[in-house]
């Protein structure tokens, strides 16, 4: 009886931990999950994982968070390995063998032993723990690459055409091992401190909830890969909005055609579709180092949406303005190198590299004012940090006067607006400013603000 109660408690704790990561799970799903556990049993951990994922999750993007939290709440073992801790050299030898054979079970076991033998730090209770960073730093699995490759070649595995793939494959295996070590270290710490705290702090959020300004390089790369799907979703939603907006005159020809199925009686009048008004869009992006992840992502998104607009023009600035529309070739092969290309091929910075909103906005109002018409919507992307120079409010007023709407998207949290050298509040008085910290927020904003 207590075992069942324990299991129920563990399941609800698990669900609670997932909820703190923004996975929306209702009571109904929790009950389903419990029924799934009852049907599947606890004998096979992999089956249990899939069963819970099927009942609790609703989206593909949540799986990463789910797996990490699952490993904390339903660990594959308790405590350390039973065997004596192995030395570093011995571990490296066995790791090389396992990598050569691509033996997943062995790699998992080695990760356990490695964390136990190399990852422990501290001795006083409360300050001690296990670190995956320290484990990997001492073990250096990446240096085994050459050894494993030579071993595989000697066995004749890498002959012919596929030989050139060998190194990348070994790299992926090593990467998988590093992930195993990270999971194991988290599990050991969670055993000491309780899974709630670790689940909250050490599990990375889903990509669309990562703050643009604090996202690491790999998270940004991951985010860029979501541009195409996000753009497609937004495009269908905008199209649906346009369709629903159809009203007005009756389309006689289509009404009569439709009436044939009701014996010539026009039961359902068909309304004439309105010609979709496709707006012109001008993007004005701060591409200085501090916000580059954000403006990159937004530029790519708007470019991917390009068939929704008659005209999209993109301007970039640091302390000078230049047009970069041409650099954003649709479906460009290398979105990652975008900001590098902007910096080398466009004149966005004068002799220093820190952003100056006043000068840049003034130059835009002066030189590119012709691009603005009463049908244009302008999006300004940037944190409005002027480095203590003049914010040049008249330029913003001039831009706002010439076009239909101006929206300012700011990647900083609202609480930080107007602090330090931020002129956000001054600009926000003139044009509507929106907080836009994550891909999720950006998606909702684009859908809401685009004048369709």
């Amino acid at each position, binding site marked *: 009886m207590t075992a069942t109660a324990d299991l129920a408690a563990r399941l609800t704790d698990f669900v609670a931990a997932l909820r703190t990561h923004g996975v929306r799970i209702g009571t109904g799903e929790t009950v389903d999950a419990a029924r799934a556990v009852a049907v599947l049993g606890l004998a096979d951990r992999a*089956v249990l994982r899939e069963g819970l994922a099927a009942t609790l999750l609703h989206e593909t993007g949540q799986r990463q968070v789910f797996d990490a939290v699952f490993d904390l709440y339903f660990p594959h073992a308790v405590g350390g390995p039973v065997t004596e801790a192995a030395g570093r050299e011995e571990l490296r030898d066995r790791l090389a063998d396992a990598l050569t054979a691509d033996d997943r079970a062995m790699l998992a076991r080695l990760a356990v032993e490695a964390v136990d033998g190399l990852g422990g730090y501290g001795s006083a209770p409360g300050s001690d723990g296990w670190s995956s960073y320290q484990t990997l730093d001492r073990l250096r699995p990446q240096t085994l690459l050459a050894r494993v490759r030579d071993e595989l070649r000697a066995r004749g595995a890498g002959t012919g055409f596929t030989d050139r793939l060998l190194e990348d494959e070994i790299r992926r295996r090593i990467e998988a091992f590093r992930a195993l070590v990270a999971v194991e270290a988290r599990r050991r710490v969670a055993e000491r401190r309780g899974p709630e705290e670790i689940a909250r702090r050490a599990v990375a959020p889903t990509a669309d909830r990562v703050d643009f300004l604090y996202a690491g390089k790999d998270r940004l790369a991951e985010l860029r890969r979501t541009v195409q799907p996000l753009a497609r979703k937004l495009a269908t939603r905008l199209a649906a909005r346009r369709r629903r907006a159809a009203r007005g005159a009756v389309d006689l020809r289509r009404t009569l055609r439709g009436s044939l199925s009701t014996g010539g009686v026009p039961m359902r009048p068909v309304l004439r579709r309105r010609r979709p008004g496709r707006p012109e869009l001008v993007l004005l992006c701060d591409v200085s180092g501090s916000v580059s992840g954000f403006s990159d992502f937004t530029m790519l998104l708007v470019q991917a949406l390009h068939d929704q607009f008659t005209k999209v023009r993109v301007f970039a600035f640091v302390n000078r303005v230049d047009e970069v529309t041409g650099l954003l070739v649709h479906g460009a092969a290398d979105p990652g190198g975008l900001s590098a290309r902007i910096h080398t091929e466009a004149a966005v910075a004068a002799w220093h590299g820190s952003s100056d909103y006043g000068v840049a906005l003034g130059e835009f109002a002066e030189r590119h004012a012709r691009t603005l018409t009463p049908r244009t919507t302008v999006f300004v992307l940037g944190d409005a940090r002027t480095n203590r120079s003049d914010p040049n409010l008249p330029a913003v007023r001039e831009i706002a006067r010439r076009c239909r709407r101006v929206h300012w998207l700011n990647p900083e949290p609202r609480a930080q607006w107007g602090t330090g050298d931020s002129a956000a509040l001054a600009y926000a008085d003139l044009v509507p400013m929106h907080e836009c910290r994550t891909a999720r927020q950006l998606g909702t904003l684009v859908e809401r603000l685009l004048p369709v």
Partner: protein
Amino acid sequence: MFTSVDDVSARLAETGYLASPAVATTVFLADRLGKPLLVEGPAGVGKTELAKAVAQVAGARLVRLQCYEGVDESRALYEWNHAKQLLRISAGRDETWDETRTDIFSEEFLLPRPLLTAIRGDDPKVLLIDETDKADVEVEGLLLEVLSDFQVTVPELGTITAARRPFVVLTSNASRELSEALRRRCLFLHIGFPDEELERRIVRLKVPGVDEALAASVVRVVGALRAMDLRKAPSVAETVDWARTLLALGADTLDETVVRDSLGVILKHQEDVLKASAKLDLDAL
């Protein structure tokens, strides 16, 4: 329908569908809990095939609703046969209106569409709602009643409840976010690209003429391509196509010329072809 997760894999394999553990577990749960199964994943990983395989295993009839923009109630649920009703009215000139009315709204004049078909009758059925994301939001509302209670309400006839619940599979390419209400009623399954070993078995099963070594190299090259961040990563369907092509070309091992000439089978964008050629060191064009 199934006794265990292993039973699911074994019986699906008999029909030629090799299921990953995730797929087998979720199908087993969908059967046991009696909930619809929502399958997402990239094109060409076998979402629709799964429904067909389940139907074959269960000896059930496959009822398919292909969704598209503008699919509506009369295409998905049911429709009254207007022409036949008109004929009936003009045939019975001497009847009173009440007699006619009860008569023309009877089952005889009802044209069942897939959703209603799946619910009526006692024989086992698998209902496949394909590309759910292509349908409009209104259709989702329609699906809610069908998927949660397995019943359909026809105002003139009353509510028709399923005597035997069909096994429901919905597929989606995620081109539109499905509503939370719909997702909530389903078990969720994401089918990604299979791991190397499973894909090798799939290739060997679908293209029997390919030997073990060639299948292994093909799968390894495809795996490398997927890691490349291309516009459209090759899917299982492309791997199988490629293996077939190689067989037709009479190639029994991979080499630069063969790969370069047949890269178009697996990659569908010119820039992807260029990028892959560069990364694979094919002496480019």
